[in-house]
C-alpha cells in the first residue's frame, strides 16, 4: 500500500482515539501546582519518604494568620467579624488549636508512678518526706478553683499534672480574656487565627477561593489603625507558584501566539491559512492535556508552562506544509507535495518524540508529564496536518511564491552558506564538538535545589517571623530512629535525646522534639516505679498525706491502689493518641521494624548534630535538602549519559537511511549547536545544572529537524529553507519566552533551548555543504 495512504489511515485512527479521550477526560481536567512534583521522587517507597510525606501532609493544609492593630478594644471587636468572614468560605474547616494535649492525658491517667518528669525524679530522690508533704499541701491549698477529688486521688502529689504539662505542645500562643488566641511578637500583640484548608493547597480551585476570602478578611482588618497582617502556610507558597505559573503561561502562550500570527501574515498573507495553522495546534494541545489527565490524574502547572511552549513546535508541521505549497506555487499537486513532506515530517516527529521521551528515562516526574503532554501533542498535530491539510489545501495557490521572497530566501541562503562553507569539514566539526565537550566538563556546575527554586523572599521572611513567634520553626532535617521493637525504639529515642540535650539552645541546634518526652521507655518507666515505690509508698508519704488532709478511709484506699500501678505505657499503646498530635514526631511500625523521627528546629548545624549522633545505634540524621541536591547531581550526570545515548540511537536510526557518515553529518550540527549554547550559558556566568542538560535533549530533538529537512529537501530547497527559518523563529519565540521565567530551573531550560535551537538553525546548512564539499 502507498505510504501516504497508510499515514493518513493511521492519522485518522489516532485522531479518533484522541477525540474519544478528550471527550472522556477534558471535562474533569484538574491542575496541580506542587512545584516539588517537578523534582525526583525516586525513593517513594522508603521509610524516609513515608515520614516526609506524613510531615508534609500534616502541615500542608494549615494556614495561620496573625493580626495586629494599635487599639486593643477595636481589634477585639473586629476579630469576630474577620473570623466569621473566613469561616463562611467552604475552603476552610475548623482547625485544631493545638493548645491541649489531646487524649494522651487520659492515657496517662493511673500511671503517676511511671511517668515522672526529670524535676520530679530529682525531687523524689533528694527531698525528705516532710519536704514532699509540705510541697504537696502547698500545691493543694494555693490553687484557687484548683483541685478536684478525682485528680487528688489519681495524682496525689501533682507529679502527673506536671508530666502532662511537660508533654503538652510547645507553643507561645495564649488566650486573652475574650477567649481569643494571641501571641506577642516584637512586643506587639498579634491575634492568632489558625485555619485549616478543606483540601490540598495544590488545588487551584481551593487556592482561588481561599485567596478571595483571605483578601476580604485582610481588607476588613486593614481598616483598623496600625493594622498588620502576617500569614504563613503552604497555601501562600502554592498561591505564589500558581500566580507565577499563570503569568508565565500567558507570557509564553500569548507572546508566542502573537509572534506566530505576525510571522504567518507577513509570509503567507492569507487569513485562511492563519486559521488553518492553528487547527493542529489546538488539537495537539487538547490531546496532550487529555492524555496527561488520563495518565497523571491532574496536569501539572509546570507541564502546562512547557505545554504553552509546545505551541512553537506543533505549528512547525503546518508551516512546512504551507511553505512547500507556496514554493510549488501553481504547480502544486497535493499528493506529490504531501508525499515529499511525509518522510522529513515523520523523521522530525520521531526525533522530537525521542527527545521528549528521553525525559521520562531521566526519572523526573514533572518532566515525564512534560514529555507525555508534548509527545502526544506533537503526534496529534502531525496527524491533523496529514489528515486535514491535503483535503483543505488540494487546490494550487492562485499565484506562485512572490518573486521578492524567492530572491530574499536565495540571497540569504547564499550568504548563509558562504559564511558556513569554511566550517563544513566533518572532521573539523567532530573535533570542535569533542574539544567543546571536554572544556564544558570543566565548567562550574550547581546542583542546589535551593538555588533552582526560590520562593518569594518576602514570603520567606514573613514565614520565619511567624514561625519564630509561634515557636513552630521546624527544620527540613530530622533524625530517623529505628529499632526491631517499640521498647528498643523508645530507649534509643531517649538515648538520642540525651545526646542532643547539650546542643539544645546553642547555635548548633535551636531545639528538638522527641517522642521520649511524651512516652518514656519501658526501662525508664520501671526506674520511675522503683523510685516511686521507695519514696512515696514504702516511706509512708501517702499515708501521712492522707492523715494531714483528713482523707476518708475509702478515699485513701483508692488513692493507694491508684498509686500502686505497675503497668507501663508503650508507644503502641499511645499510637492512636500520638496521631492526634500533629506537633509530635511520627511513630509507626512497618514490616516488623519500628520507626520514629526526632524533629529539629532551625537554626542547626548539620555537622554538629552528626557528631552528636556518632555511635548511637539506630539513629541517623536525614537531610532532605542535601539528599535532593545529591539526586540532582546524579540526574545531571545521567542526563549527560542520556543525551549521548539519544545521539547514538538517532544516529543508528538515521544510518539506515543515510549511511554512517551521512548520519554523522545530520547529527553534528545540533551537537555543535548544543556545545556552543552551553558554552555561552557558562560564559554568562550560569553554573550548569540538570535543566541545561535536559534542554540539550530538546535541542537535539527539535534542532535535528532542520538538518533532516535540508537533507531530505533535494530539489525543493526553497520551500524547506523558508519552512525551517519560520519554524526556528516560532520555536525560539515560544521556548525563548521560557527564559523569562522567574523559576531558575525553567529559566535555565528556556535559555539553553533558545540558544541551542537558534544555533542549530544557523549550523543546519552544514549538512548540505558537507555533502557538496565532499562530492
Amino acid at each position, binding site marked *: 500500500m502507498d505510504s501516504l495512504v497508510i499515514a493518513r489511515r493511521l492519522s485518522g485512527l489516532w485522531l479518533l482515539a484522541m477525540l474519544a479521550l478528550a471527550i472522556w477526560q477534558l471535562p474533569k481536567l484538574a491542575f496541580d501546582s506542587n512545584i516539588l512534583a517537578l523534582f525526583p521522587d525516586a525513593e517513594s517507597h522508603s521509610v524516609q519518604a513515608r515520614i516526609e510525606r506524613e510531615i508534609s501532609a500534616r502541615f500542608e493544609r494549615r494556614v495561620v494568620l496573625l493580626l495586629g492593630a494599635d487599639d486593643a478594644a477595636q481589634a477585639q471587636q473586629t476579630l469576630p467579624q474577620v473570623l466569621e468572614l473566613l469561616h463562611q468560605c467552604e475552603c476552610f474547616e475548623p482547625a485544631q488549636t493545638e493548645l491541649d494535649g489531646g487524649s494522651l492525658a487520659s492515657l496517662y491517667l493511673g500511671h503517676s508512678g511511671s511517668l515522672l518528669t526529670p524535676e520530679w525524679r530529682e525531687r523524689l530522690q533528694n527531698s525528705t518526706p516532710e519536704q514532699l508533704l509540705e510541697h504537696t499541701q502547698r500545691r493543694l491549698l494555693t490553687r484557687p478553683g484548683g483541685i478536684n*477529688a478525682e485528680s487528688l486521688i489519681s495524682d496525689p502529689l501533682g507529679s502527673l499534672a506536671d508530666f502532662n504539662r511537660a508533654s503538652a505542645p510547645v507553643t507561645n500562643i495564649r488566650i486573652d480574656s475574650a477567649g481569643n488566641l494571641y501571641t506577642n511578637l516584637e512586643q506587639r500583640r498579634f491575634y492568632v487565627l489558625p485555619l485549616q484548608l478543606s483540601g490540598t493547597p495544590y488545588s487551584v480551585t481551593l487556592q482561588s477561593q481561599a485567596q478571595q476570602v483571605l483578601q476580604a478578611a485582610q481588607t476588613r482588618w486593614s481598616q483598623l489603625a496600625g493594622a498588620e497582617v502576617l500569614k504563613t502556610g503552604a497555601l501562600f507558597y502554592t498561591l505564589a507558584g500558581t500566580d507565577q505559573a499563570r503569568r508565565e503561561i500567558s507570557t509564553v502562550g500569548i507572546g508566542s501566539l502573537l509572534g506566530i500570527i505576525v510571522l504567518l501574515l507577513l509570509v503567507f498573507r492569507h487569513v485562511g491559512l492563519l486559521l488553518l495553522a492553528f487547527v493542529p495546534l489546538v488539537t495537539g494541545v487538547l490531546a496532550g492535556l487529555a492524555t496527561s489527565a488520563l495518565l497523571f490524574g491532574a496536569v501539572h502547572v509546570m507541564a502546562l508552562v512547557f505545554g504553552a511552549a509546545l505551541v512553537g513546535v506543533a505549528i512547525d508541521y503546518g508551516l512546512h506544509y504551507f511553505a512547500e505549497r507556496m514554493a510549488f506555487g501553481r504547480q502544486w499537486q497535493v499528493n506529490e507535495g504531501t508525499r515529499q513532506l511525509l518522510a522529513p515530517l515523520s523523521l522530525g516527529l520521531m526525533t522530537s518524540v525521542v527527545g521528549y521521551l528521553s525525559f521520562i528515562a531521566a526519572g523526573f516526574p514533572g518532566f515525564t508529564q512534560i514529555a507525555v503532554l508534548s509527545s502526544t501533542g506533537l503526534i496529534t498535530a502531525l496527524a491533523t496536518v496529514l489528515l486535514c491539510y491535503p483535503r483543505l489545501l488540494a487546490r494550487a495557490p492562485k499565484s506562485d511564491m512572490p518573486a521578492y521572497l524567492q530572491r530574499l530566501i536565495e540571497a540569504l541562503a547564499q550568504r548563509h552558506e558562504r559564511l558556513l562553507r569554511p566550517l563544513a569539514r566533518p572532521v573539523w566539526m567532530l573535533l570542535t564538538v569533542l574539544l567543546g565537550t571536554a572544556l564544558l566538563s570543566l565548567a562550574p556546575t550547581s546542583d542546589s535545589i535551593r538555588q533552582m527554586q526560590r520562593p518569594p523572599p518576602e514570603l520567606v521572611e514573613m514565614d520565619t517571623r511567624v514561625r519564630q513567634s509561634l515557636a513552630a520553626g521546624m527544620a527540613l532535617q530530622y533524625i530517623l530512629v529505628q529499632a526491631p521493637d517499640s521498647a528498643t525504639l523508645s530507649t534509643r529515642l531517649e538515648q538520642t535525646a540525651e545526646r542532643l540535650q547539650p546542643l539544645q539552645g546553642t547555635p548548633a541546634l535551636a531545639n528538638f522534639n522527641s517522642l521520649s518526652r511524651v512516652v518514656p521507655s519501658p526501662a525508664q518507666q520501671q526506674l520511675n516505679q522503683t523510685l516511686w515505690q521507695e519514696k512515696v509508698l514504702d516511706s509512708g508519704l501517702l499515708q501521712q498525706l492522707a492523715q494531714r488532709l483528713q482523707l476518708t478511709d475509702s478515699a485513701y484506699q483508692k488513692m493507694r491502689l491508684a498509686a500502686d500501678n505497675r503497668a507501663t505505657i508503650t508507644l503502641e499503646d499511645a499510637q492512636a493518641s500520638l496521631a492526634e498530635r500533629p506537633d509530635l514526631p511520627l511513630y509507626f511500625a512497618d514490616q516488623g521494624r519500628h520507626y520514629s523521627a526526632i524533629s529539629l528546629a532551625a537554626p542547626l548545624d548539620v555537622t554538629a548534630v552528626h557528631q552528636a549522633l556518632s555511635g548511637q545505634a539506630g539513629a541517623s540524621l536525614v537531610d532532605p535538602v542535601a539528599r535532593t541536591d545529591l539526586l540532582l547531581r546524579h540526574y545531571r550526570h545521567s542526563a549527560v549519559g542520556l543525551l549521548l545515548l539519544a545521539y547514538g540511537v538517532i544516529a543508528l536510526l538515521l544510518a539506515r537511511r543515510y549511511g554512517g557518515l551521512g548520519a554523522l553529518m545530520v547529527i553534528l550540527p545540533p551537537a555543535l549547536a548544543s556545545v556552543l549554547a552551553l558554552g555561552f550559558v557558562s560564559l554568562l556566568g550560569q553554573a550548569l545544572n540538570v535543566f541545561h542538560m535536559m534542554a540539550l535533549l530538546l535541542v537535539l530533538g527539535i534542532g535535528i529537524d532542520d538538518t533532516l529537512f535540508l537533507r531530505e529537501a533535494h530539489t525543493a530547497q526553497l520551500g524547506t529553507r523558508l519552512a525551517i527559518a519560520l519554524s526556528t523563529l516560532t520555536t525560539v519565540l515560544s521556548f525563548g519566552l521560557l527564559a523569562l521565567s522567574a523559576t531558575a530551573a525553567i529559566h535555565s531550560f528556556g535559555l539553553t533551548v533558545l540558544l541551542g535551537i537558534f544555533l542549530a538553525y544557523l549550523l543546519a546548512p552544514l549538512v548540505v555543504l558537507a555533502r557538496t564539499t565532499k562530492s
Partner: protein
Amino acid sequence: MVQIHLAKSINVAPLIKIVCVCWLSLLAALSTAQGVFDHPVEAASAEAKTLEAIAQQLRDRLPIEGTIEQQKHLTILRQPMVSKGSFELNATGDLQWRIDEPFAVTYAMVAGELTRTMDGEVEAITASSEPALYGFLQLFSRLFELSLTDLNSYFAVYLLDPADTGTGWVIGLTPQDSRLQKVLAHIVVQGEQGTISQVMLSEPGDDYTVLNFSYDQPDLR
C-alpha cells in the same frame, strides 16, 4: 428540722452524720441561693436591667480590695481545706490574688498575663498550662464587670434581686460549654450593693468551693 430537710433535698446525705450546726446553717444559706436557678435572665428584660444596675454598682467600686477565705469541700475529705488571703482588683481588670495562710503565694493577672510568685520566684502561667487556675482567676476578675453578653457566651445567667431575697442579690451561672460542664456544675454569686460577699463553685457531684469576701472599709458602701 427544716434545715436538715433542705440539706437532704440537695443530696448531701453522706455528710449529714458528721456536720455540725454551723455547717448546717451554711448549707441552708446556700440552699436559699440555689433558688436563683428558677429566675433566668433574658436579654433586654427587666432582670437584665437589674443585672446591669448591679454591674454598674460593682464597677463603681473599682478599684477594690478585700480579704478572702476559701473553703474547699470535697466528699473524700473529713473537713474542708481552708486558705486565707486578700485580693485587689482595679478598673482595667488587673487582679492581685494573695494567699497568706497556710502558705504564701501571690497570683497577678495583668493585661491577661498571669504570673505566680512563690518563695520570691515569679513564674508565668498560661491558659494552656493550668487551665483551671487561669480560668478561675479570669472569671473572678470578669465577675466585677458582669457584662450580660460576655457572660452569655459561656453561661446561662440567673438572677434573684434584692426585692426577692430581702437582703442582697444572687446571681446564678450554669456553664453552656460541654468542657466547662465537666468540671463545673454551677456558680452562685451573692452580694449586696457594690460588693460581692460570696462565690460558690459547685462541681458535678457533691464537691464545691466557697469563697467568702470581706471588705475593710464597710463605711464606703
